């Protein structure tokens, strides 16, 4: 797959600004992102997606918030409309990929072992196991974890963070980095709201807005088919936006803390 892209080029030859000082010790000013190596690989992955007009979406949440169930329902509803593929991140098992394949959609399972997040190199490895020439939307189901996955760009265009109603409506306040990274927040398992008297969707939304997030909040139940139309419409509009970007020669990164980076114009 990486025949033309120079895949194995490492960022070892990136220029670093440095000012050696005379004598036995020198002070070197670097100002480089700690995860620059991952970011370079992510940009490379994104180029793979863009050359094929693929929209790539990274799904993140706590363990068991309903990521795989959302994918299953999405496959059932959209499989005739779009060509879908899934990369699954999981600690030890092939279970999630097996659930996707059972619905006739190609899925590759990254077994992360003890790792608590996916990184851009793992995703790149996985890309070589999928036929990307026949894909419109690629979903990456990240490891269930509200902390680490937010720090690693995978090359995706959009992040979707799920918050299930069994988790408590203050989760965005407790995990601001994760919820700030979301381009859309799915409020999942809303069929359970009637039996959960302590989850207030309005309070969940308030916690999200207090993170200066203006993104859509999509309440739904994959199990009972409630609220799914808004999710499918969001996917359709994101795919249309991705295709428009590709024809204009542009790309987009998800909302991984970009404002600070842009405003203080750091290098790296």
């Amino acid at each position: 797959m990486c025949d033309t892209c120079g895949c194995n080029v490492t960022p070892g030859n990136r220029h670093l600004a440095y000012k050696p000082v005379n004598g036995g010790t020198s002070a070197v000013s670097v100002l480089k992102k700690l995860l620059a190596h991952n970011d370079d690989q992510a940009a490379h992955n994104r180029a793979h997606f863009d050359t094929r007009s693929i929209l790539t979406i990274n799904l993140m949440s706590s363990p068991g918030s309903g990521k795989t169930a959302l994918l299953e329902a999405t496959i059932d509803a959209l499989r005739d409309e779009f060509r879908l593929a899934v990369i699954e991140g999981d600690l030890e098992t092939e279970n999630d990929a097996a659930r996707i394949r059972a619905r006739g959609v190609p899925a590759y399972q990254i077994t992360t072992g003890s790792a608590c997040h996916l990184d851009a190199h793992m995703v790149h490895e996985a890309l070589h196991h999928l036929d990307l020439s026949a894909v419109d939307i690629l979903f990456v189901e990240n490891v269930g974890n509200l902390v680490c996955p937010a720090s690693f760009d995978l090359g995706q265009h959009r992040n979707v963070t799920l918050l299930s109603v069994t988790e408590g409506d203050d989760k965005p306040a407790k995990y601001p980095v994760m919820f700030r990274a979301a381009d859309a927040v799915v409020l999942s398992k809303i069929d359970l709201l009637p039996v959960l008297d302590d989850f207030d969707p309005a309070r969940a939304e308030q916690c999200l807005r207090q993170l200066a997030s203006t993104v859509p909040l999509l309440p739904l139940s994959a199990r009972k088919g409630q609220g799914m139309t808004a999710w499918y419409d969001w996917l359709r509009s994101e795919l249309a936006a991705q295709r428009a970007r590709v024809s204009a020669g542009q790309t987009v990164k998800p909302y991984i803390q970009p404002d600070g980076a842009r405003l203080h114009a750091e290098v790296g």
Partner: protein
Amino acid sequence: MHELSVCQALVNQVVEIAQQNSAHTVRVITLHIGPLSGVEPALLVSAFPLAAAGTVAASAQLVIEPQPLRVHCQTCGADTEATPNRLLCGICGDYHTQLLSGDELLLANLELIT
């Protein structure tokens, strides 16, 4: 958690820069870390010796300079301090703000012995 991966990325960069500068030892590593970087400074400090063992950075002192959390309000234009789960404008209270600083995860500088 992922602080070990972050430390390994840090050590790789530091070793690379030390080589480029023909340094045999790294004395001090200074990082800029904001409260919204997604990285816990204390965990980074405890993961560092493991990641640096056997490299030119093995005996380096890791200095972390915390960065302030500041937002710019798109509604009233004010720049104010904020907290990680309350990024509202400190003047008008609006949530349409942009982060000015506070999400840094940067290798700022190194002190090398050549």
